[in-house]
């Protein structure tokens, strides 16, 4: 498993398209246990990323690419998800600085740093029914043999069953058990697209 600049770029463009397709679903989940804007926020952010990627197609450095994506997300998404996704990519950049590609420990280190970044930015941890519940098992799976896609699916299912205790969803308590966390779903979209390029390249 190796993440190249080109592969990450491809995964990001695919994510942008997938977010467009699932925009309403993300928004509807957020209407259930949030404030009804997650699809709109993610769409604004990843359309911004797409535009940046299309404008700057000579980037050869994984660190530069990650930083560009992180800053774009921070500047365009807003809400809770903007700083969280933005922080994740900025953290990738600190670990993948000056690298054309990342694999093995480097790859893991990037995701580890990103996941920790999300947790410390959000003052959150696993089990609170947030995007963290996707990022953490995904990152752990990078060091094992498990299928990344299966891990994501399982994590999504596990997250859905949780009671939210962080972010807007926490206002709705027990009720949140029946509804998927929108940020978990958007994270699964991003990470599945990254898994795709990691596994099939």
């Amino acid at each position, binding site marked *: 498993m190796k993440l190249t600049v080109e592969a990450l770029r491809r995964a990001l463009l695919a994510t942008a398209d997938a977010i467009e397709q699932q925009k*309403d679903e993300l928004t509807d989940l957020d209407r259930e246990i949030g404030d009804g804007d997650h699809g*709109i926020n993610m769409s604004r952010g990843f359309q911004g990323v797409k535009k940046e990627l299309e404008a700057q197609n000579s980037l050869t450095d994984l660190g530069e690419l990650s930083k560009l994506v992180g800053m774009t997300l921070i500047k365009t998404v807003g*809400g809770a998800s903007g700083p969280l996704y933005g922080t994740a990519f900025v953290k990738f950049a600190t670990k993948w600085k000056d690298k054309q590609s990342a694999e093995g420990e480097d790859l893991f280190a990037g995701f580890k740093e990103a996941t920790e970044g999300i947790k410390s930015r959000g003052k959150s941890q696993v089990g609170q029914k947030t995007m963290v519940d996707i990022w953490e098992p995904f990152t752990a799976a990078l060091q094992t043999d498990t299928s990344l896609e299966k891990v994501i699916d399982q994590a999504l299912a596990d997250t859905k069953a949780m009671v939210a205790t962080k972010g*807007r969803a926490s206002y709705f308590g027990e009720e949140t058990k029946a509804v998927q966390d929108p940020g978990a779903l958007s994270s699964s979209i991003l990470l599945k697209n990254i898994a795709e390029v990691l596994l099939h390249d």
Partner: protein
Amino acid sequence: MDKLMQDANRFVSDIVDGLVLAHPNQYEKVEGLNVVKRKGGAIADKVGLVSGGGSGHEPAHAGYIGDGMLDAAVCGEVFTSPTPDMVLEGIKAADGGAGVLLVVKNYSGDVMNFDMAKDLAELEGIQVETVVVNDDISIQNEEDRRGVAGTVFVHKIAGAAAASGKSLDEVKQVADKVISRVRSMGMALSPCYMPESGKPGFELPDDEMWIGIGIHGEKGVERKAVAPVKDIAAQLVEHLTAEVTDKRIAVMVNGMGGTPVSELYLTYKYVSELLEQKGYEIVRPYVGNYMTALEMHGFSITLLPVDEELLQYLDASSKAIGFLV
């Protein structure tokens, strides 16, 4: 969805433009951003006051800019915290050299984005402090409590303190004093609609209501049959007075955006009766649409125990269009 709008993608900037156009001597936009500042910019040596958050709460937050209240307001997309770069511009616009206080409402997004902006501003040599408002008692867990209409009292009182020449620490202190005392709770008869998706925050039959709503169109914590307003008010007052035990109070009956003032005054009648029956003395009543959720129909009650210091700041002159004194 019944909404007067031109283009969902320009919803927020159209509001901000309209506000600035309608008050050309008072407001100015930071070029290219939905950040509003006092016309003429920061006041030298006065502590700057910046608020903001998602839009849809009009007249909050830009409508509270003006002599005696805020210096800048950062207007995110609807119900979406603004980004750190925007907040940074707000901080810069408000900084007159005496530092800047950020009034943040307790939402993950707002807290994170304003924090990141604070870091950026400090890199540029601006002294920044933050207070986080969490007056909404509908949420049990105190840590998760949302900032709602009580924020307006924080703007007013911290704004008056800043205008009177207090230092950043002193202004922060009085803001924290308000935050420690102020409590709110709200209800909705009908939802609001997100301009882009055209969808309501919740579906609610005409004969039901939500108790314990926030200001982002989300459903509340208890859904029940619509009742005469005195019964509704009694439920909110019951919860509020369990937490607010000082008897000398300022009261705000705040509309959620689509509530006509007629109904707010009618509501105030029963709210004040209920409070007085419980031995509270209402020394300052405020009735109006102060902290809204788009066109939502409903109201919230805010109680603020006051002392001479807070009263003096509440009564100080304000030129903010949302809170003229």
